Structure formats: C-alpha cells, structure tokens
C-alpha cells in the first residue's frame, strides 16, 4: 500500500474479529517498523511485549483487564504492551561514538569522540537521566515514534489497530516487566470486524488550527492543489457523515454479534 494511503486508512479499530488469527509474520513486520524508528542517541527507548490472547492463561488475561478495557482485550487476538526504557542513557557514549565512526554523526556537524565524552554525555545525557520529568518526556516522545511506525505497518499489512491506556499495575505483575520500563500504551491488533474505514475519517480541524509558519499566530496556509492531491492519493478521505445512521446500524449489528450492551 502506498504510504499516503496507509496514513489515510488508519483508524482506531474497536471491533476486531476475535476468531481470526493474526499471523506472527505480520507482527514481526510491525516490530521491525518500530525498530527502524528515529531515536535519540540511537537508544532502544521502545520496549514491547506481544501477547496473543489465546496463549494467555485465564488468570493472566483476567489480570490484564479493567472495567474500561475488557471488551477490547477480549476481541483483539493480539495485544502489544508498549513501554519506554528509562535506562536509555546506558551505553549512549559507545553508541554515539559508533555513529561518529560510521559517519552518521559527521565531523562537518561538529561530532567527534571527545565531543561525546567531554560534553554530550557529562553535560547533557547524564543530567537528563537524573531528571525524572525530562526522562519521562524523552522516553515518551521516542517510544511514541516507534509505536506510530508499528501501528502504520500494521495497517499496511491489512490489520486493524487501536491504541489504548491500560492497567499498568496489573500488567506489570503478570508480564514481569522491569522497574525501569514505564508504561506507554497498549496496541490492539487484529482483523477488523467493523468496516476497516470505520465509516469515514474522524473529524479533524484544518491545518491552520495547529500549524504555523515563521511564528505562532501566522497559520500555515494550505495549498489547495496539495489538498486535492492528497484526496486523490488517499491520505485525506471522506469524513464520517453527519448522518450517522449507517454507522449506528453497523454498531447495532456488531453489538448483536458479540452480545455487547447498547
């Protein structure tokens, strides 16, 4: 699938076909996409535990559920628990110097081993690692980049995906995650039982609401030809119609199928 079509097709899927297995090969594609994500100091910020619902014991499955996640976790054949590693500074000097040696961090931009050893590590990374707020910020941003790539790779593989919060305390016990991993999101994965397009793209505000040129207060001016091209190429798709009757009918059918409340 073309990249713009993948971006345009992504929806948060909430109704998965619970009995259609997800191929491990496709999960590996998602993990590799995460592994290829941009990352500061070439660190492995993002950590993940892939759980196949039907491989979990009843005890573990129940421990992962909360009154706000039970339906999703029951419907999705795969749940990926994403964490961020707060020990990303460990080994940072060696990794940075490796990038210097490879020319990824070029001398033209001021990168040398002494710069890494004498400035970057002691004056930037080490203090950052001791600042809990800054660490959480860095880990969250960097893990988010990886999670986004995994999510889009899933869409590219024809899967449905959805990010949600989760019961971190319950998950920590049963997944046995180390203390230095901080919880991010769960990514539910499966084949959609609902229309993969979810009735249309979710409402979005125009670019000018959020994006600026030069300084805050000068909104980015949309180029109509680009907008039209993105519509043709699938990044911008028809929004959910104001008349939601068709979507509501679909929800009713899904509720009947899965015995869900209406």
């Amino acid at each position, binding site marked *: 699938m073309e990249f713009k079509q993948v971006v345009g097709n992504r929806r948060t899927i909430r109704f998965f076909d*619970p*009995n259609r297995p997800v191929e491990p090969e496709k999960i590996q594609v998602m993990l590799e996409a995460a592994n290829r994500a941009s990352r500061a100091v070439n660190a492995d910020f993002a950590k993940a535990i892939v759980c196949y619902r039907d491989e979990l014991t009843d005890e573990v499955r129940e421990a992962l559920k*909360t*009154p*706000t*996640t*039970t*339906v*999703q976790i*029951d*419907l999705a054949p795969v749940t990926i628990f994403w964490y961020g590693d707060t020990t990303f500074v460990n080994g940072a000097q060696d990794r940075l110097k490796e990038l210097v040696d490879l020319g990824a961090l070029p001398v033209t931009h001021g990168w040398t081993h002494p710069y890494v050893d004498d400035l970057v590590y002691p004056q930037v990374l080490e203090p950052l690692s001791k600042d809990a707020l800054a660490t959480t910020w860095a880990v969250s941003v960097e893990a988010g980049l990886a999670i986004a790539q995994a999510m889009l790779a899933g869409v590219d593989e024809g899967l449905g995906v959805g990010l949600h919060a989760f019961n971190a305390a319950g998950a920590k016990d049963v997944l046995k995650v180390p203390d230095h991993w901080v919880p991010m999101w769960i990514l539910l994965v499966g084949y959609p039982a609902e229309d993969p397009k979810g009735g249309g793209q979710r409402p979005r505000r125009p670019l000018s609401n959020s994006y600026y040129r030069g300084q805050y207060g000068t909104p980015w001016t949309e180029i109509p030809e680009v907008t039209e091209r993105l519509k043709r190429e699938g990044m911008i798709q028809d929004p959910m119609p104001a008349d939601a009757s068709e979507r509501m009918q679909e929800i009713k059918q899904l509720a009947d*199928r*899965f*015995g*869900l*409340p*209406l």
Partner: protein
Amino acid sequence: MTSQGIESQASVKQWAAGAGFDHDPAEVREDKLRILADFCTKVGKQPDELVAFCILRKKATGERFLSVKRREAINGWLDDFTGEQGWTGKQAVVNANVVRSFLIHNGVLIQGRVWRG
C-alpha cells in the same frame, strides 16, 4: 424489586431514553427491566443507588470520579448473578450486558464479557 417498581427511578428513565428501548416491543422492554430489577434485588440497591455506588468523590477536592474497584465489584456481582440465574453461553453475556447498558447510559463506563462464539 419489580420491573414496574423501578421504572420511576431517574436512572431507569435515563436508560430507557438513551438506549431508545421505549420503542422496543413490550416483551423486550419488560425483559430488560426485569433483569435490572432482579440484579438490583440481588445486590440490595435501587437502580439510582447502583449508579451512585460507582461514583465517588476525591477527599481532597470533592471532584467526582468513577471508581475502578466499584466497577470491578459490579462485574463480580454480575458473574455471580448470571451463574445464579442459570444463564450460559451468549445468553449470559447478553443479559449481564443489559445491566451494563443501564450503567453506561447513566455515565458509568463499564465493560464486561464478550460473546466470541
């Protein structure tokens, strides 16, 4: 508690309006009300009290919040209830979710079992 007896409760009216089951056939509506009434009898709470049970206030600020533990308690009671009623399979899921529908339409996000049959 009877199905007729609970209809005057504000939370039940809100449920009926939100779920639109005022327009359902009489027997379907009656079934839903009876399930809720029987559950309320089991747990010894009126419908309005059941909703209130899920909502607590923070001691420091007085701010209202939905209690996870209370909702977990309700899910536990629902498991007991469906077992006591002898419901199995999809019927057990659907009927327990009637009670969850009541709570949901009163602002209590609660999820339970799914029929994957």
